C-alpha cells in the first residue's frame, strides 16, 4: 500500500473557463449589478451543482435544489467576502439547500445499512473469504450498468444525512478532505470518520448486490 490521497481534487479547473475571469472577479462584478457576470457563474457551475443535487437528493428533487442554490447565491453575492474559495461557499449553499429540501419532503423510511459493515470472527479476523471480500471491487464489471446506477442512488439516499453529505462531497465530487471540512463546518477528522463509515457500508452493499445477482 502507498499512503497518498485516494482521489484527486478536480476543483481547480472550476475557477476559470472560456470567460478567462476568476470566480472572485465575477462575483465582484455580479455583486455590483453585472448580470452577465452572474450568468457566467451559473453557466460555469450549473452542471456540477445539478450533479451534486442529484447525489444529495434525487433526480426528481435536483432541479428545485439547483434553482434554490443559485437564487441564494444571487441574494448573498454581497456577503461573499472571499474568506473562503467561491467553490467552497457555493457547495455549502448547495449542500444546505439539498438538506433543507430533504427535510421538507416526505421522510424516507429509515433503512439501516449496518448489516453491510464488515464482519469479524472471535479473533478479529475477517469472517468472509478473500474472494468474497474483493468482489465489490468488480461490481461495475459484474452488474448491469442501469441496475447499478439505480441501486447506487437508492443506497446513497439511505445513508444518514451526515454520512451522505461527507461521502458525496469527498468521494463523489472529489473535494479534498480540508475543503469538505470547510464546507460542512467540521474538523477534517470528523470528515474522515464520516466518509470512512459511509465507505464501509457502501462497500458491503456492493458486495451483497453482486452476490444476490450472481
Amino acid at each position, binding site marked *: 500500500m502507498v499512503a497518498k490521497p485516494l482521489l484527486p481534487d478536480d476543483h481547480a479547473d472550476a475557477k476559470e473557463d472560456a470567460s478567462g475571469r476568476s470566480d472572485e472577479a465575477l462575483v465582484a462584478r455580479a455583486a455590483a449589478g453585472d448580470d452577465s457576470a452572474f450568468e457566467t457563474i451559473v453557466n460555469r457551475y450549473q452542471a456540477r451543482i445539478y450533479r451534486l443535487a442529484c447525489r444529495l437528493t434525487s433526480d426528481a428533487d435536483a432541479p428545485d435544489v*439547483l434553482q434554490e442554490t443559485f437564487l441564494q447565491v*444571487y441574494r448573498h453575492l454581497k456577503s461573499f467576502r472571499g474568506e473562503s474559495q467561491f467553490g467552497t461557499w457555493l457547495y455549502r449553499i448547495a449542500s444546505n439547500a439539498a438538506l433543507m429540501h430533504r427535510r421538507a419532503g416526505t421522510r424516507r423510511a429509515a433503512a439501516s445499512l449496518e448489516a453491510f459493515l464488515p464482519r469479524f470472527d472471535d479473533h478479529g*479476523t475477517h469472517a468472509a473469504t478473500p474472494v468474497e471480500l474483493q468482489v465489490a471491487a468488480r461490481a461495475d464489471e459484474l452488474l448491469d450498468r442501469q441496475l447499478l446506477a439505480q441501486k447506487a442512488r437508492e443506497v446513497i439516499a439511505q445513508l444518514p444525512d451526515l454520512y451522505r453529505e461527507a461521502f458525496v462531497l469527498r468521494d463523489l465530487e472529489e473535494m479534498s478532505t480540508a475543503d469538505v471540512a470547510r464546507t460542512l463546518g467540521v474538523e477534517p477528522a470528523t470528515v*474522515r470518520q464520516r*466518509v470512512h463509515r459511509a465507505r464501509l457500508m457502501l462497500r458491503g452493499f456492493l458486495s451483497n448486490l453482486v452476490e444476490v445477482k450472481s
Partner: protein
Amino acid sequence: MIEVRCISGVELLMDYLEGVLSVEMHDALEEHVAGCDKCAAFVASYCETPRILRDATASALPSDVEQSLKVFLRARTTAFRRH
C-alpha cells in the same frame, strides 16, 4: 511493536490513505496487510467503492432543466432587484 488485526486495521484505512497515521501505526498496518490475503482483498474493494459509485451516479444536466433554471433566475433576480 503495535499489533494490528483485521478488525483494527479496517478502522485505520481512511487515516492511512489520507496519510495522517503515525509512522508506527502506518508501518504496523502495512505489515499486517502484506501478510493477510483477506485484508488485501478488503482494501482493494474499499478503495474501488468511491470510483464505482461516482461513475454510477454521474448525471448530466438535462437541457430542459438548464432552460428552466435560466427562466427561473431571470424572473426571480428581476423581482429581487425591484425590491
